[in-house]
């Protein structure tokens, strides 16, 4: 941090030797201008870094030769046709949608209730409860996946005589736990900023608790609940490692894609991936215009394997 800057652009410009004498060589305004420019250059370079691999993949999804540009052999939509005609792949996509929806619903229900407990009540071991609720997000996928695999495959049958064959429902259960922290973080942060006197006012005016909840509390918390659901859904949809361990023989989209990369079927992989980028772009653009997505996101840094 020895270089001159007020902005953390130390990687961008300004050499140590300019300090001290630099202020006299470069006049103040010129320096401000350069710093401002520098910041934009860095930002631009980063956006290129974030986008270039995705852009390359999208372009390759339309080219005949699907893994590299050269030698260029022309443009085609055939990869998309083959992808959407691939029944096994479409089935795993449908599994992913179902798993994500059920798991996110469970996570949202439990998470919203737990958020009210955290925001509205003082109880013993409250901080432990909160930490416990955030834990699934922090535990690496490999660890959670293996722990649950052992649990479902070995411990439940061997010790408790309960048999749950790894498959659809084990993935749902796993993802419902994984999604919980995202709901919890978003909804509690919303409840903390919630002015409870609104509820009191409604009660004073004669509304019963259920009416207060429906007409006052819910509308204010609803965007956060929606965002929490969306996060839990996306996390489940894109999770590979947890599903990989507990899926049994069922394929979800990520496990299908994993085998596609492993066995080198780039054309379909490019097409389905580009399609997902497009869908997410549309959903995100809509969500950003409807609600404060960036504010929500800033409150839920999570982990991904």
């Amino acid at each position, binding site marked *: 941090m020895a270089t001159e800057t007020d902005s953390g652009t130390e990687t961008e410009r300004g050499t140590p030797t300019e300090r001290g004498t630099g202020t006299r060589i470069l006049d103040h305004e010129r320096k401000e201008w350069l710093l401002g420019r520098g910041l934009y250059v860095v930002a631009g370079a980063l956006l290129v870094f*974030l986008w270039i691999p995705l852009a390359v993949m999208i372009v390759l999804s339309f080219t005949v030769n699907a893994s590299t540009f050269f030698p260029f052999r022309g443009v085609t939509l055939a990869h998309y046709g083959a992808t959407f005609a691939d029944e096994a792949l479409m089935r795993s996509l449908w599994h992913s949608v179902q798993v994500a929806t059920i798991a996110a619903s469970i996570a949202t229900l439990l998470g919203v209730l737990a958020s009210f407990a955290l925001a509205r009540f003082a109880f013993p071991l409250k901080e432990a409860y909160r930490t416990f609720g955030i834990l699934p997000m922090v*535990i690496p*996928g490999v660890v959670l996946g293996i722990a649950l695999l*052992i649990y479902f495959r*070995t*411990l439940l049958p061997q010790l408790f005589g309960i048999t749950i064959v790894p498959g659809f429902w084990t993935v749902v259960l796993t993802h419902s736990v994984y999604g919980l922290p995202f709901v919890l973080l978003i909804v*509690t*942060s919303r409840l903390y900023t919630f002015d409870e006197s609104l509820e009191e006012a409604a009660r004073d005016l004669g509304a019963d608790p259920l009416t207060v909840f429906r007409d006052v509390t819910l509308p204010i918390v609803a965007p956060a609940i929606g965002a929490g659901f969306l996060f839990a859904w996306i996390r489940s949809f894109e999770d590979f490692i947890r599903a990989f361990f507990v899926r049994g023989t069922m394929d979800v989209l990520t496990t299908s894609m994993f085998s596609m990369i492993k066995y080198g079927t780039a054309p379909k992989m490019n097409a389905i991936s580009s399609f997902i*980028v497009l869908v997410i772009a549309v959903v995100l653009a809509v969500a950003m215009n409807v609600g404060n997505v960036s504010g929500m996101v800033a409150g839920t*840094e999570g982990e991904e394997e």
Partner: protein
Amino acid sequence: MATETSERGRSARERFVGAFASRANRLGITAGPALVWLFLLLLTPLTFMVAVSFTSVDTFTYQIIWEPTLANYDQLFAGEGPFWQTAFFQSLALSYFIAAVTTVLCLVLAFPLAYLLARRGGTTFKVVIFLVLLPFFTMYLVRAYSWYLMFGPSGVLNSTLMRIGITDGPLGIFNYGVPAIIVGLTHAYFPYMLLSLYASLDGLDFSLTEAARDLGASRAETLRDVILPLVLPGIISGSLFVFVPALGAFITPRFLGQGKVLMIGQLIESRINSLYAIGYGSAASMFIVASIVVAFALAFRYVSIEDLGGV
């Protein structure tokens, strides 16, 4: 009939409201379900995983033999030579190295952009945040795969360079291996760092930096003495959310390492999936869990749990 139904409806409603009458009931209904869920699907499996790491598995029936043994831990560090030459130790050390470099890289890259976002509002902000969030929301697997296309001896980077005539043969730096993994992980976790830093910088009162400058502090001094201490929680929580998942990464090293690099996540996965060596896998996982506990314990000296959520 109609009145009777509405009577019944009302009583159901009253019963529902009545269930929330006492404080204990309200607490039970709100806190209870998640607690049960977390107990059954998180605490119990993880506790058993710890237990399993101290047991052995019957090689024929795959049943766990519940007799305490240190054999799994012994196996992690036992080999031909000293313990630092075992596959496990080397892969653990390599994972630490890769995760640490990724964290530093994310921090250095994300800071300028987070600063820009915090200082500029309006359209610039919206467009930039959209361009950052879109890759962030795009499936992790897809992003790892997109780098898989870029790297490699005949990947996009090498083939393009050769085509343009800058190099004659494939460059080693663009081959699969540690540099490729670091790039892939930086790309994957960069948004976590950015959003953590942004949340911190956005709450920063920039009149403080102006005051510091007015009082004669240089830019570097302002950064060091004013900005950095105030955004420290963001830096720490961002680092945590990059370092921890990078340590346990599986997909990125699997595809961008192409067998040349064995990170801890892959090592565990291969033992479990090919040998069902759950004792070995559990014991190895304990080292990831322990590292994470240490990382969080260190972080909590500077930040609270609320800071981690950015609340």
